[in-house]
């Protein structure tokens, strides 16, 4: 047994400790976010990504920690998300209120928790990792610590607490049904009512954190109060961890497929419908991320080879395009009473043609317009679903896509069709990051085969 796979989690944990110590010791007044925290963070994060690049597949802790190409994928996506959040922070309009060291530590801890979540086949480990991340969600969401963000944090905390009670109850039932707590033993047993009930309840917290309607109500509140750079992280990273864990769990989910299908239908329709009537940009983004959770969950209903391919493709594309969206939103100034709304985008197309163009590209992709990667992700998802005869969920998803086009195109009207005084915020770093994300999207548009080949490679080693 090689201990090399532990290097990545250990690096994440030690980096977090380092930042916590720095936060506790550092002088309170020095504004060190840009000068100290950012370079250190980037360096440490990149270091923690190094072990992802090599080292053979390995199973540690009796299969509770799998080090395979899937978990390495997860590590890379999470790293991209965290790095993007941290790079955006120095350009954020309320950066003086964000404690840099603690934020950096929380990002590391969050990545650690999600990496563990996506690499485990043990239900207890998964639940603990999810709980850990749910606390981190609350802390990052409420990091500004003013009235509004504390309210959002509070609501999320108590809703999450309730959801986790259900999951724990489910875990107890699963333990009662199987006497074990790993995925393999769930699959090997024929489904009894106790097993089904346990699985259903166990999923509760996961679907909650994945923001599936009707368990999504925390997401808009939290994304609205969280600083936009952290919103970028919170709307992408947990989806990676949870989706990949659910992918590992999916062989056991067969008896629950109708139930999951119902969740998918409700989520894609409700998420997109709610996005349609939002004026606040980050609430809109939150509902859009709710809807995308629905599409990703649709992948779980597919038969085996398609399931992983469709999910991983969609997930990768989603992470990039949603980060683009939040990177663009991060350029808008915020305040205790000012939450950017559609009005604030007026005149962007004229004053900031490049930024507006990048945002438009991301929006088209989110709406699933051909030939953007968002469309390809949906095509790769819907095709096998239709072949399997999942007409109802696919129909709902298509209808949801239609609604989402209307929702995303609402942003084009202020950006391009009206002029106004542009609110300027953000710095070069944020702009460069947005350009990078758009470039990635462009590469995926022109050469999607690269990603499909990569995904094939990933699953050939699992």
């Amino acid at each position, binding site marked *: 047994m090689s201990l090399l796979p532990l290097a990545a989690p250990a690096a994440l944990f030690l980096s977090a400790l380092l930042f916590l110590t720095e936060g506790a010791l550092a002088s309170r007044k020095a504004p060190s976010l840009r000068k100290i925290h950012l370079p250190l963070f980037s360096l440490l994060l990149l270091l923690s990504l190094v072990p992802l690049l090599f080292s053979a597949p390995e199973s540690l802790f009796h299969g509770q920690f799998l080090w395979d190409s899937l978990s390495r994928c997860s590590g890379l996506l999470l790293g991209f998300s965290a790095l993007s959040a941290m790079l955006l922070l120095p350009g954020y309009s309320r950066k003086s209120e964000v404690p840099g060291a603690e934020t950096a530590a929380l990002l590391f801890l969050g990545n650690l928790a999600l990496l563990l979540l996506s690499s485990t086949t043990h239900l*207890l480990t998964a639940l*603990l990792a999810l*709980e850990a991340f749910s*606390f981190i969600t*609350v802390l990052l969401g*409420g990091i500004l*610590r*003013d*009235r*509004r963000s*504390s*309210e*959002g*944090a*509070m*609501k999320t*905390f*108590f809703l999450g*607490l*309730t959801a986790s*009670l259900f999951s*724990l*109850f489910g*875990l*107890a*039932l699963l*333990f*009662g049904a199987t*006497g*074990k*707590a790993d995925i393999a033993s769930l699959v090997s047993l024929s489904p009894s009512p106790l097993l089904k009930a346990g699985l259903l309840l166990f999923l509760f917290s996961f679907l909650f954190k994945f923001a599936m309607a009707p368990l999504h109500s925390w997401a*808009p*509140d939290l994304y*609205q*109060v969280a600083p936009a750079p952290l919103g970028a992280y919170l709307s992408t990273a947990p989806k990676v961890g949870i989706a990949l864990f659910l992918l590992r769990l999916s062989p056991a989910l067969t008896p629950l497929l109708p139930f999951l299908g119902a969740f998918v239908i409700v989520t894609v329709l409700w998420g997109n419908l709610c996005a349609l009537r*939002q004026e*606040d940009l980050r*609430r809109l983004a939150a509902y859009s991320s709710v809807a995308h959770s629905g599409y990703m969950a649709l992948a779980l209903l597919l038969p085996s080879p398609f399931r992983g391919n469709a999910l991983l493709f969609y997930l990768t594309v989603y992470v990039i395009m949603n980060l683009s969206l939040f990177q663009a939103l991060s350029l808008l100034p915020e305040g205790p009473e000012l939450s950017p709304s559609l009005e604030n985008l007026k005149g962007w197309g004229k004053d900031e043609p490049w930024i507006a163009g990048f945002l438009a590209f991301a929006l088209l992709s989110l709406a699933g317009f051909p030939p953007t990667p968002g469309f390809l992700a949906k095509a790769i998802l819907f095709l096998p679903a239709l072949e399997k005869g999942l007409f109802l969920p696919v129909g709902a998803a298509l209808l949801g896509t239609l609604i989402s086009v209307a929702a995303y195109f609402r942003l084009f009207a202020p950006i391009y069709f009206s002029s106004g005084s542009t609110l300027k915020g953000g710095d070069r770093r944020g702009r460069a990051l947005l350009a990078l994300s758009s470039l990635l999207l462009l590469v995926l548009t022109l050469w999607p085969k690269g990603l499909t080949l990569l995904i094939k490679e990933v699953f050939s080693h699992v």
Partner: protein
Amino acid sequence: MIPLVPALVVGSLGFLLGLTILFVKRGPLMILVGAEFALNSINLLFVAFSRLHKSPLGDAVVLFTIALAAVEVAIALALIFHLYRRLKIKALEELEELKG
């Protein structure tokens, strides 16, 4: 020998009671009390199933639940302290800004 079924009944009833407390009561402390009560009932289920399967896993999970509960209480109290002391909030009903 105490049979398992009563323990399962008590545990499930307790879980429902805990949820009821959670939904009926206002105020963060009472929500915590409800959550703790529900957690305890779940623990009883774990212990009972542990005996059924003659596996120490259930007992071990109880230890984790207790740790989780402690962490939850600590974080919740920190948040409550922040809300009531720093932000001078009188009651949670004041917090109704986020909607939609």
